[in-house]
């Protein structure tokens, strides 16, 4: 076999190398400007908006290719990574974000047209949000993390309120902005305190400064505020209050984006911060995280049970899923990091399916799609009903779907760490979740539709159909052949650990 030339480690003190290390982010920033220029030229019709969408899609795909190229060539940092990490967890996290963004664009192209929104800037904001998310998944420095979070958040605040005709959309944006600003402030205050305690904002230097001693009050407070800021973004209880209203009010593709991309970026960043800066203080953070995981699972599932609107039900279920993922965060082990990534991957793909089908069924924000409104869907639109069924089963964590592999690896990580009570809460709340996922399947397959032609206008459009169909197939395939994806997840997270071990902390 021909020897494959591994990329020599990048010296991040050198600006050119730093630019190479930031290639996907820089490329997307440039792409956002190109799309912006295009918009300045063409911004009047649906066709213009659609073209902006295709341009965005192309740049996201190219960014993905750049990211994949860096991953394959084994880009790494010389010495301690400054500002941005060059490791497998970044590539893996970036892949999630890009998949989420590509699906969002595919879902948006038909949606904007249908809802009569002519606004090509929408896509520029998506690109910028992705830049922020990529910064978050790769941040090796708390400041980069904060910058990424803000770039992402500001873009998403605007996107949440994009349907200017709808009062609910405006309400969602305002609520998200006000509460999100609090979250960011907490995060920033936490960073400041940590800087005060350690004299650095570099994740690994913070880690080495904190090693070997009890956590000081200042550092502990910094950690707590940092956690609050990130838990805000993932919508874990008790910081989830904004989520249902915002998810429900936002245009559906943006809801998809928030539930997948935002959540994935925040969880990857959370995992990285905890494992690189606070590996020894695991005793200090695993207890509160475990407690919050339990509260989030119970609360999210029980409240989802009583929702009538499917969109709102999925919003609460998204809170519940954040609780599940926290179980993987809690032990602070590579198994946990691997499970977090796997579950995020499963949840991202599944959410693309569920919200995609939802947007085909509804009009003007999908707020009114209830169980009654999907009765008998299977007879008229078997494809949509099948995709939704796969989505529901995957969210439930049923064997044969990727969701099961995700849930299984979370249970695995928790039990490996000797934590069984959370594992039991996870499975019991999963049973509760069957109480709201199953009625969806039931309504589609086991009830009569109000009359022929009810679903005649339930159309997804070709781009969105592609996204939903690919996600459905992948969810099923990875549920049956999970071998490669599991070993990939294990590899990436092992790298996350070996870094601080190698460097002798």
């Amino acid at each position, binding site marked *: 076999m021909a020897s494959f030339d591994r990329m020599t480690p990048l010296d991040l003190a050198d600006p050119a190398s730093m630019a190479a290390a930031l290639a996907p982010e820089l490329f997307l920033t440039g792409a956002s400007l190109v799309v912006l220029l295009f918009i300045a030229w063409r911004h009047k019709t649906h066709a213009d908006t659609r073209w902006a969408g295709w341009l965005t899609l192309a740049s996201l795909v190219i960014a993905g290719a750049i990211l994949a190229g860096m991953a394959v060539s084994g880009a790494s940092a010389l010495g301690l990574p400054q500002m941005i990490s060059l490791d497998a967890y970044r590539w893996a996290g970036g892949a999630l974000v890009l998949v989420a963004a590509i699906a969002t664009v595919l879902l948006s192209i038909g949606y904007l047209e249908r809802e009569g929104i002519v606004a090509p800037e929408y896509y520029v904001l998506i690109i910028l949000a992705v830049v922020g998310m990529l910064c978050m998944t790769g941040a090796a420095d708390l400041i980069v993390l904060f910058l990424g979070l803000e770039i992402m958040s500001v873009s998403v605040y605007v996107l949440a309120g994009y349907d200017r005709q709808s009062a609910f959309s405006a309400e969602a944006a305002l609520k998200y902005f006000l509460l999100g600003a609090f979250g960011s402030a907490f995060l920033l205050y936490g960073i400041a305190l940590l800087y005060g305690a350690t004299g650095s904002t570099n994740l690994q230097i913070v880690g080495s400064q904190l090693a070997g001693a009890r956590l000081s009050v200042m550092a502990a407070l910094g950690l707590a505020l940092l956690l609050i800021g990130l838990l805000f973004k993932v919508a874990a209880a008790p910081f989830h209050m904004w989520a249902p209203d915002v998810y429900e009010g936002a245009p559906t593709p943006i809801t998809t984006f928030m539930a997948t991309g935002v959540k994935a970026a925040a969880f990857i960043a959370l995992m990285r911060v905890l494992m690189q800066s606070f590996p020894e203080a695991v005793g200090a953070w695993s207890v509160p995280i475990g407690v919050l995981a339990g509260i989030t699972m119970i609360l999210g599932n029980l409240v989802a049970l009583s929702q009538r609107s499917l969109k709102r039900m999925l919003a609460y279920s998204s809170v519940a899923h954040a609780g599940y993922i926290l179980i993987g965060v809690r032990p602070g082990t590579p198994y946990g990091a691997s499970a977090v990534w796997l579950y995020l991957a499963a949840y991202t793909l599944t959410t693309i399916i569920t919200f995609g089908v939802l947007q085909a069924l509804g009009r003007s924000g999908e707020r009114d799609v209830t169980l009654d409104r999907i009765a008998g869907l299977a007879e008229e639109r078997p494809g949509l009903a099948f995709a939704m069924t796969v989505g529901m089963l995957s969210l439930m964590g049923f*064997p*044969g779907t990727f969701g099961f592999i995700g849930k299984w690896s979370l249970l695995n990580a928790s039990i490996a760490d000797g934590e069984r009570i959370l594992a039991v809460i996870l499975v019991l709340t999963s049973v509760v979740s069957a109480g709201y996922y*199953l009625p969806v399947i039931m309504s589609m397959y086991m009830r009569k539709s109000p009359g022929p032609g009810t679903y005649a206008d339930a159309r997804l459009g070709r781009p969105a159909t592609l996204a939903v169909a690919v996600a459905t197939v992948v969810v099923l395939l990875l549920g049956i052949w999970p071998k490669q994806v599991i070993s990939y997840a294990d590899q990436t997270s092992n790298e996350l650990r070996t870094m601080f071990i190698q460097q002798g902390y």
Partner: protein
Amino acid sequence: MTDFLAGIDFSAWALHALVLLPLFGAALIVVLPARLARGLALAVTLAEALVALGLWWAFDPAAGMQLRSSHAWIPAYGINYIVGIDGLSVFLVMLSALLMPLCVWSGWNAIETRLRGYYALLLVLLTGMIGVFIALDLFVFYVFWEVMLIPMYFLIGVWGGANRLYAAIKFFIYTMAGSLLMLVAILAIVWHRAHANGGAFSFAYDDLLAYMATGSLGTLKPWLFLAFALAFAIKVPVFPFHTWLPDAHVEAPTAASVLLASVLLKMGTYGFLRFAIPFFPAEAFAPLTQAVVVALAVIGIVYGALVALVQPDVKKLVAYSSVSHMGFVMLGIWAMTVQGVQGAIVVMLAHGISTGGLFLLIGMLYERRHSREISAFGGLARVMPAFSAVLVITALSSIGVPGTNGFVGEFLVLIGSFGPHPIAVGIAATGVIFAAAYLLWAVQRVVFNKLDKPENQALTDLTRREWAILLPLLAGILWLGLYPAPVLRRTEPAAQAIVDHVGTLAPRARSAHVLPGN
């Protein structure tokens, strides 16, 4: 026959064929036009039955676990697709595969909507059932165990009776609740074993069994046992976890009722014999557990029978009779004598044949009259003599009249349990009497009495298709009742192995009551 099977090297592909054949069949049915669905389903299930029949000759009672094969699935966690059969599973596999063509055929005219979905789901269900009985890797077992829920859920929910939505979701959630806790328990065992073995993972049944016999799980063990036992107890179902059963049985279409009663319930008792008891012999036969299980089994026997007595709906009557019969199986298992365990296995088979037959007969009646109320019938013997005769024979076999399959198993259970649990046997024996009461009374009201309802005057007797469905069952009833020796010979080593295993690991379980000759 054995030479022929050896000539085609039956062992290498038989179990894989049993799992894959229905899946391919289901895929074909989905893509081909709906009018081909039922014929194709029948052809696939007949082929499946033929392969399963070959197991009768290919199976060597003395060889223990056989036809084993193993393929890597998720190597990083030591998960392999391991399958094999022994005396415990071989008849359950055969029962599933042989009943299936009859079930497919039973819905020939009754199912009129969404034919492709119906037959494809039946075939997927078949894969799940076979998989549960042959899986020797706990991850694989769990996957089959859960996957089976989906087809059954749809069969009840789409093609079921008036109250089908409630029944379907109840069935699903009950089963899922139990099995997810079992998944946690499986993972806990696997991780304890991995820690003890320097991080080497295995979900293989043999590895975990060996670890459970030597490794120390300490205070965790009773909890793990509880998780396994709950999953299986819900499926059996053991009183008081039985409430999903009457709903599911009554609402399900005929084929699904037959499979629920004949095969799915056996998965619970099979799980006890295969997993819960060999893994946790000391916990399973601790004095307290033993008292509780035997008490619940006896309550199930008597309660099921008493409730069956007052049912106006004949399908519900048969459903409650299942609760009663499965109580016998539990009693036989917890006797932990060779007769008791063998009796339990035979009751499982016998109940599968008799109750399956009863549900099929009720289905035929329902197709003609669209009613299952006992009061809607009466005097059917005059218009449907052949049907009535078959119904009487099947009912007698369900009661356990000597000469039928029901007698052999229940008799063995009662003999085997008399030593360890004499009082329980005394009460359980009344269950047989109650069974005679509720079934004969029901048969009398349906078949005999006066033919006083005008709607019943013109009912037609069994068609040729219905005869073809019922004859194999009648043959099974009489053969197992008159000459059970071949079955007993094939199950005995497996039963002996379980009893020995428990005897060495939990000596208290084998009390001094063991009958001479064992």
